[in-house]
């Protein structure tokens, strides 16, 4: 549905994106992840034909963005970073204007408007001026705008910014429900969002794609060791040394709160049973024992810090302490 080949965009001497290549299949939801200024918005602006690429080609639904912009624009629903709303119009006036710009008329227009108002819960504010609406409602009006002509491709630039947690969940559900029938590109710097809604993640940093895979495979790929967190109520002084002796344990870190140990173990070896047995037989007061998997957040931090290393396909230096401090626990692994 979307095919981006070797796209480069330069502003004078500054290169905003550098030979970006990726594609999105029909019905797929792709997250575009990256720190601010990484080139997410630039890529989206090229895809939506707002600006031309310096080099390379971008295609949407088989149409080239540079050569047939109108055909591309007809097939895209785009929500820019700032919701593009006219403050002096009411919600329904605005949606009617948007629909007419996209060639919807009469009954089709009314039906589309009713569908989006319903879908995004805009009913109560339909006849209010957009200028008087809260940030969350404006964002939803922006989304309604993008969805109005039921485009096969949706490009959403940080769609959940400024929403409250309940709304964020609703919008994520909405995006998930669009998967299958729509191809969606979604940019975000909120990592759980990418894990929650997307089948595939593209991590972009400094204008280059540094990784592209499913969220699970990305974290698996970057994991060099299993990590186990252990909390003891009555840890003796030599606990670290004794834990180190357990077969499979490579290193023991004690930097955290008192009684907390982080065990780094050989890949593919579960030491939890043995650690538990040692702790219980010695009456150390076992409080917690869990395996820690690397979250997308860690992957992201590593990739954006070590972009050169990844680009060359070399192994990353393990950063156990940094990873552990930001890691969240995953009880299933």
């Amino acid at each position, binding site marked *: 549905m979307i095919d981006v080949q070797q796209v480069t965009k330069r502003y004078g001497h500054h290169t905003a994106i550098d030979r970006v290549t990726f594609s999105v299949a029909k019905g797929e939801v792709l997250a575009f992840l990256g720190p601010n200024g990484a080139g997410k918005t630039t890529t989206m602006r090229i895809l939506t*034909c707002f*600006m031309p690429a310096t080099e390379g080609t971008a295609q949407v639904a088989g149409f080239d963005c540079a050569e047939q912009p109108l055909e591309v624009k*007809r097939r895209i629903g785009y929500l820019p970073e700032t919701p*593009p709303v006219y403050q*002096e119009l009411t919600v329904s006036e605005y949606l009617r204007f*948007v629909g*007419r710009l996209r060639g919807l008329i009469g009954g089709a227009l009314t039906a589309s408007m009713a569908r989006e108002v319903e879908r995004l819960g805009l009913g109560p504010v339909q006849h209010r001026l957009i200028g008087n609406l809260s940030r969350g409602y404006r964002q939803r009006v922006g989304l309604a705008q993008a969805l109005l002509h039921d485009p096969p491709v949706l490009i959403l630039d940080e769609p959940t910014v400024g929403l409250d947690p309940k709304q964020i969940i609703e919008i994520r559900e909405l995006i998930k429900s669009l998967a299958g029938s729509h191809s969606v590109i979604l940019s975000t710097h909120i990592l759980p969002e990418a894990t929650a809604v997307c089948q595939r993640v593209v991590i972009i940093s400094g204008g280059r794609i540094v990784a592209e895979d499913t969220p699970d495979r990305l974290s698996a790929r970057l994991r060099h060791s299993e990590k186990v967190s252990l909390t003891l109520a009555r840890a003796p002084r030599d606990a670290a040394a004794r834990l180190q002796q357990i077969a499979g344990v490579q290193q023991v870190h004690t930097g955290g709160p008192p009684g907390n140990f982080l065990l780094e173990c050989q890949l593919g070896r579960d030491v939890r049973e043995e650690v538990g047995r040692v702790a219980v037989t010695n009456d150390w007061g076992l409080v917690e024992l869990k395996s820690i998997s690397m979250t997308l957040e860690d992957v992201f931090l590593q990739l954006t810090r070590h972009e050169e290393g990844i680009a060359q396909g070399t192994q990353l230096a393990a950063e156990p302490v940094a990873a552990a401090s930001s890691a969240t626990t995953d009880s299933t692994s």
Partner: protein
Amino acid sequence: MTPVRAMITKELRSYFVSPVVYVVGAVFLLIVGLLAYLYIVFAGAQAIQLLQMHGQASINLNDLVFRNLFSSIRFVLLIILPILTMRLFAEERKLRTFEFLMTSPIGLNEIVAGKFMSVFLVFLGLLGLTGLIPLTLSLFSDFDWYPVMTGYLGLTLLGALFLAIGVLASALTENQIVAAFVSFGLLLVLWLMAGLGSLLGDTAAGQVISYLSFMEHYDHLVRGLVDTTDLMYFFSALVLMLFLTHRVVDSARWR
């Protein structure tokens, strides 16, 4: 409904919910009304003078009222029209709706045409209201309607040109005040070129500069002279300004 009509509807709506049109319209009509009143009173005073001297008087309202009035309105338009046009593109860029417009399946021609047409319609509405002045006068006196009509044609063309220059200025910046001042400056330059042209006299350069200014073309129409040269001047200037706007808006995407 075509996209251009959708654009026009939206722009008109935006104009009429903001106070700008009402304020600008009120000021415009007040000044024009006041000027008309002054010229009529002046004509009346002249009539009385003639009556006392010759025992009878016939005054020419076309010369004494309408020609003066049309000359003065030109100046009023120069001041108020930039205020009407300043928001058209500058606001879109400021409020980030520009990106939305440019990614809508609507051509740049249609966007420029829609914006221009909307403000032109507002202007025509205001101009139409000044039509009450000759209509009221015609109830109490006789005058020749033909030069009044050509005067209105001149005002329409002049207004269209001013508005097109204003739209161009608005596309150049995202600051509305700057847009208003740029169009104000451009209009003044065009105005003063007439003075420069007459200063240079009957030389080739003088004629070219005089031709480029709207002054003599407008004067012909106010005097009741409809010449295709003048019409061509207004149409080509209008097209040129809208074309430049198109280029400027297009290039704004690249930066």
